[in-house]
């Protein structure tokens, strides 16, 4: 083959251009990166991540791990990251439940219910979520002031600084209670398998839900009472300014959670509705012809098929919720952005902190989509 025929051959010509393009893009990206780094160093803007080991010297009100103002910047950012994960998980759970219920109710034959849900969806998804966060926060701030807290049995308090619950202190004997608890969980797994097999053989349905609930509460509680109560509760008491002791759920967390979950649920309900409508009506008719109850038809026939349509767009809603949680900074929920901003201001390391934000959200989003893709694969229609 001479050079001319190489050139006239469509496949090799295409290949040459593709290689050239890839090399071109790679060179361009490498150039941009090295140029940026050189320029940043020249301007004294990028000085590395060693500042993460310095003392943070500021406080955080919601912390899942040990943290004080003498901890490091790195630890402060981890505390913030965990707070973001908390709101993301709480939000995703609530949004899914509300979204599925709203989506199903919107298809209800009851005119009033379906209209009400339509109003909810159209209202909530057309108002910017930042405004909704502030709206919920202001609503929560109009709860009773701390001196007039509402209380249940003087152990649970509600005021505009949050909900204060008794916290538990675990002493040595409490290990047994946990052992019993996990023992129950393992036993339940085997009961579930056994009840499945029995149902397949005999058609008898075992009341699994009630059994599980009863065992999970009853057995650990019994152990607790028999082993001279190894867990004592730290009940909040009224202090000079605030309630003291116990565990406080801040109004910022609740406001953010309500706003994000209702907002995202509105989108999810539309996705669920489209999923349900995509299942052919013959399926429903066949199910009722077999004598299945409407609730069972929805749970066992319609939803499993609808899920195949629902899952992929649902994943993007989960990702949106996680990313929207960064709006927390407006009302003072100390998520990674709120804490990162403080770190940025104290240390002046703008680019480093922003890069941590990007890597954090990227990782969180990739983990979420990896999990959802795995779930999607699992429920996919098996084709031959």
């Amino acid at each position, binding site marked *: 083959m001479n050079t001319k025929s190489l050139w006239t051959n469509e496949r090799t010509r295409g290949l040459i*251009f*593709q290689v*050239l*393009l890839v090399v*071109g*893009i790679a*060179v*361009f990206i490498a*150039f*941009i990166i090295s*140029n940026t780094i*050189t*320029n940043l160093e*020249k*301007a*004294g*803007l990028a000085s590395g991540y060693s500042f993460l080991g310095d003392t943070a*010297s*500021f*406080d*955080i*009100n919601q912390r899942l791990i040990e943290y004080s*103002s003498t901890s490091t910047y790195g630890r402060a950012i981890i505390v913030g990251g965990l707070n973001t994960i908390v709101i993301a998980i709480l939000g995703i759970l609530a949004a899914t439940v509300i979204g599925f219920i709203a989506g199903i109710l919107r298809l209800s034959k009851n005119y009033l219910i379906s209209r009400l849900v339509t109003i909810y969806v159209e209202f909530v998804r057309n108002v910017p979520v930042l405004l909704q966060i*502030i709206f919920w926060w*202001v609503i929560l*701030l*109009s709860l009773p*002031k*701390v001196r007039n807290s509402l209380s249940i049995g003087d152990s649970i308090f509600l005021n*505009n*600084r949050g909900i204060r619950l008794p916290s538990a202190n675990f002493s040595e004997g409490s290990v047994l209670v946990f052992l019993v608890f996990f023992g129950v969980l393992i036993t339940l797994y085997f009961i579930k398998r056994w009840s499945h097999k029995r149902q397949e053989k005999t058609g008898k349905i075992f009341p699994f839900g009630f059994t599980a609930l009863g065992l999970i509460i009853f057995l650990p509680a019994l152990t607790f009472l028999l082993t001279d109560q190894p867990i004592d509760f730290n009940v909040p008491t009224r*202090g*000079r*300014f*605030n309630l*003291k002791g116990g565990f*406080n759920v801040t*109004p*910022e967390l609740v406001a953010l959670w309500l706003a994000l979950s209702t907002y995202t649920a509105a989108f999810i309900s539309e996705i669920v509705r489209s999923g349900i409508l995509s299942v052919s009506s013959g399926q429903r008719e066949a199910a009722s012809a077999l004598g299945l109850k409407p609730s069972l038809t929805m749970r066992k026939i319609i939803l499993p098929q609808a899920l195949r349509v629902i899952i992929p767009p649902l994943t993007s809603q989960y990702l949106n919720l996680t990313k929207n949680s960064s709006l927390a*900074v*407006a*009302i*003072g929920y*100390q998520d990674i952005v*709120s804490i990162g*901003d*403080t770190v*940025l*201001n*104290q*240390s*002046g390391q*703008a*680019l480093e902190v922003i890069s941590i934000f990007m890597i954090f959200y990227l990782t969180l989003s990739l983990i979420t989509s990896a999990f959802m893709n795995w779930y999607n694969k699992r429920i996919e229609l098996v084709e031959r």
Partner: protein
Amino acid sequence: MKLNLIRFAAMAIITLLSFGTAHASTLNDVKAAGHLKCGINTGLPGFAFTDDKGNWNGFDVAFCRALAAAVLGNPDKVKYVNLTGKTRFPALASGEIDVLSRNTTWTFSRDVDLGFTFLGVSYYDGQGFIGRKSLGIKSAKELDGASVCIQTGTTTELNLADFFRSNNMKYEPVPIETNAEARAGYLAERCDVYTTDASGLAATKSTFKDAENHMVFPEIISKEPLGPLVRQGDDQWADIARWTLNALIVAEELGVTKANVNEKAKGTKNPEINRMLGKEGSMGKMLGLDATWAVRAIAAGGNYAEIFDKYLGTKTPLGLSRGLNALYKDGGILYAPPIR
């Protein structure tokens, strides 16, 4: 595909050309551009705000105007760049602005580690607390167990943590990004007290409907010397900006005002005034400017006292007294080196 390649090559060349020209002299750059790029706050009563015609005004803005007048001969030749607490330092370091005049606290790490040069102190501030009189306390040292609203993005959180730690007290921090929401949180009694710089507390209190029910506690828990700053490494530009600030303070000391500066520039019996206003010596030339640089700087908005009274003083809604910011001979600590 070929077209894409050409496009990429073109973009690469454009990027190459537009990047990385080192700043030789900020003075020459400012003169060539014909305007001063001055970084200011996005909006803070008294310090940087827009008037009803949409022009920027305020204590920090007045310094930009004086500097532009000294360098370019016209106080209006300023391009204002509004910066948040987050964007101010990268903007200065990258050369997006020539000088930062945005109520910025002069601290060791900002001066040394971030590579900036502070020009002096234009306002001595300090962090304080505001609380309801009905709390029944007289001092911030009685705040053990309180909830504290903080406006984030300054050195405020750090001072607060230090104060409570050194006094062995506990508190619940409620850090909120903007002043508006932080104020709303305080007014709804989400927090017992609100903390920020004393000047900010005065500005915030002035907006309360029931201002008489609130009190600023006597403790000032930090030193917040606010001042303008420039990039490190251009000493000539730093000198020009530093001495413009000093000239405004010296002018107050020597009784040179906006009204009489042109009169006094013709010559007085006081040799220091003559030196500052260019009648004697060659101060302007040493800076790389002309002889009447200080005349224009003072004519732009008056001396330090005039600027303070106009934007922050007791006749304004902020109602701040001079306090530490009075001249050293009037009981304050404002003290500019002599012009000679």
